[in-house]
């Protein structure tokens, strides 16, 4: 083998294709940095700027009406409880419907025409803009006063959030149950279990962690939504004190951020930053929790 043919086989950095290759690698690295940058900026601003306004009083006080007191704007206490209450209402509606629907798709009708339609429908529902959910609930619940004559209410807000949670839950339940090996089903049915017993004692427990991941992600999405709440739950500055208060306007962290960010007063803007600190911390911990459950599950499955 002469020298020239050997040289042709070694890496030559000055070749056009190698230069082009390097350049594209650098460009893709730049793109990755640009993509991560907004997260770092948003998170650090929210944590530093928002965190600096957090103290005990901010967490428990009720917000003052804008412009009333220029030095202190009160706190975000009612908004925190409101977010929790409405997310809770949303989950008691959407968990049974979503998990039930997912069970139907995966266990009863794997490829029937109706199941295909429901799968397609839940994909479409996932793509429906969140503001449309708000408009829809406004039209059927708020403007008709169907809930015992109350108009804007925490319950209406919770229902509109449940529409947004539903597709996530139904999809993850369906997919989690599909991953359960068919052998388990056959074994359960073979020893005489009814389909109900099989689902409750075998397939649901096997898919439990994936389903709960989906539910947590759905919760995180619902807790951060604003658009469906601005004309269903509206906003309230007061804590709820009785069950009846569920049928009146209810504040939430996200609507508080929206309302107070656009106020001209500095103290209101600070409350908006404080509220986004709390909201981001809640949502990030829900997301990390869901990752952790997933990982724990993968770990225990590997062991078996």
């Amino acid at each position, binding site marked *: 083998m002469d020298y020239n043919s050997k040289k042709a086989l070694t890496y030559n950095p000055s070749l056009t*294709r190698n230069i082009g290759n390097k350049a*594209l*690698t650098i*460009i*893709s*690295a730049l*793109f*990755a940095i640009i*993509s*991560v940058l*907004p*997260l*770092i*900026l*948003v998170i650090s*601003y*929210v944590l530093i700027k928002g965190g600096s306004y957090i103290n005990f009083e901010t967490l428990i006080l009720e917000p003052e009406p804008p412009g009333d007191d220029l030095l202190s704007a009160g706190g975000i206490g009612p908004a925190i409880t409101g977010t929790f209450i409405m997310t809770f209402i949303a989950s008691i509606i959407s968990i*049974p419907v979503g998990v*039930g*629907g997912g*069970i*139907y*798709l995966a*266990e*009863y009708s794997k490829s029937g025409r*109706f199941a295909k339609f*429901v799968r*397609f*429908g839940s994909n*479409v*529902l996932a*793509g*429906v*803009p*969140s*503001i*449309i959910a708000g*408009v*829809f609930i406004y*039209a*059927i619940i708020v403007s008709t006063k169907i809930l015992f004559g109350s108009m804007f209410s925490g319950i209406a807000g919770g229902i509109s959030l449940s529409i947004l949670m*539903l*597709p996530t839950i139904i999809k993850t339940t369906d997919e989690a149950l599909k991953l359960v090996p068919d052998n388990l089903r056959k074994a359960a049915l073979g020893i005489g279990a*009814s389909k*109900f017993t099989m*689902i409750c004692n075998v397939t649901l427990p096997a898919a439990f962690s994936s389903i709960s991941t989906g539910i947590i992600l759905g919760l995180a999405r619902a807790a951060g939504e*604003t*658009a469906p709440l*601005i*004309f269903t739950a*509206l906003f309230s500055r007061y804590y709820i004190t009785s069950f009846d208060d569920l049928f009146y306007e209810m504040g939430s962290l*996200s609507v508080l*951020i*929206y309302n107070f*960010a656009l106020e001209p007063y500095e103290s209101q803007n600070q409350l*908006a930053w404080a509220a*986004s600190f709390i909201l981001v911390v809640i*949502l990030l911990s*829900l*997301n990390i929790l869901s990752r952790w459950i997933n990982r724990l599950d993968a770990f225990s499955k590997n062991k078996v």
Partner: protein
Amino acid sequence: MLLQVDKATTSKFLLRRRTTSEKLVDISFKNFVVTMASMVAIILFSIFAVVYYESTESISRYGLRFLFSSAWNPVTDEYGAFTAIYGTLFTSIASLLIAIPLGVGTAIFITENIIPKYIRDLIGIMVELLAAIPSVVLGLWAVFIMEPFIRPFLNMVHEIFGFIPFFGTEPLGAGMMPAILILVVMILPIITSISKDSLNQVPSNLRQAAYGIGATRWTTIFKVIIPAAISGITGGVLLALGRAMGETMAVTMIIGNSNNFSWSIFAPSYTISSMLANQFGEADGSQVSSLMYAALILMILTLMVNVFAQWIVKKLSLKYQ
């Protein structure tokens, strides 16, 4: 010998029939899950039905003229959604054009073995966490931090290229350009994570074959890996387009909410969803019906994009299996 077992054992192992209550539970459970599954269909249909029903007044009054008129005057009761429809389409498509190279580039970077795996995983997780930040928080950040920061740059563009109608007005705060940028931030995680998943699913044989015949890394990516993953990438891009069109809060806070039509991307504008967020609460009479008409248009737009996305994923993925 074997058959002579005592009576206690035989009765223990006799086949038993399911009791009526067991059957009842079984059947009612099935009915329950069927009902729950049909809820999805019912909700979807009723959303369309309600929005259509509420907008019939405007539909019969304006017809298709609504789409091409930019009048929005509650006093004279004259409505047209051209500005909002243009704003919705323009902001979402412009943000998509910026986000596609960034998102797909990032996805390629974190699926290739350029840097150690744990750094790539970290970048992947960070981009996905970006999706967890609620849009209202991004809006807050855009209003107070991003917009003041980019305004000098936009001013520079306006001074140099001001003769082009797209940059014709002076950037004075809220406007279409900041809205486009915040939309990029919002849809980037969708494009990146879906592209990443579909790039990861490309069989490694394809890559090895390409390397084996002497292709470089990027030739392999452009000629082999991306074509093999194109169905997933396209699906992700369309999903992101749907999300961008329906995105409300961040856009409402930063787009300036003005119904005056302008070619300039620095001028305040409207999208359908920001118009709804801004006006729906205080609207009454025929304004509600016009807003519902706009909502119906938004729903049809996002529905078309979503159905097309599902169709294209199916269509393209069959080709490579």
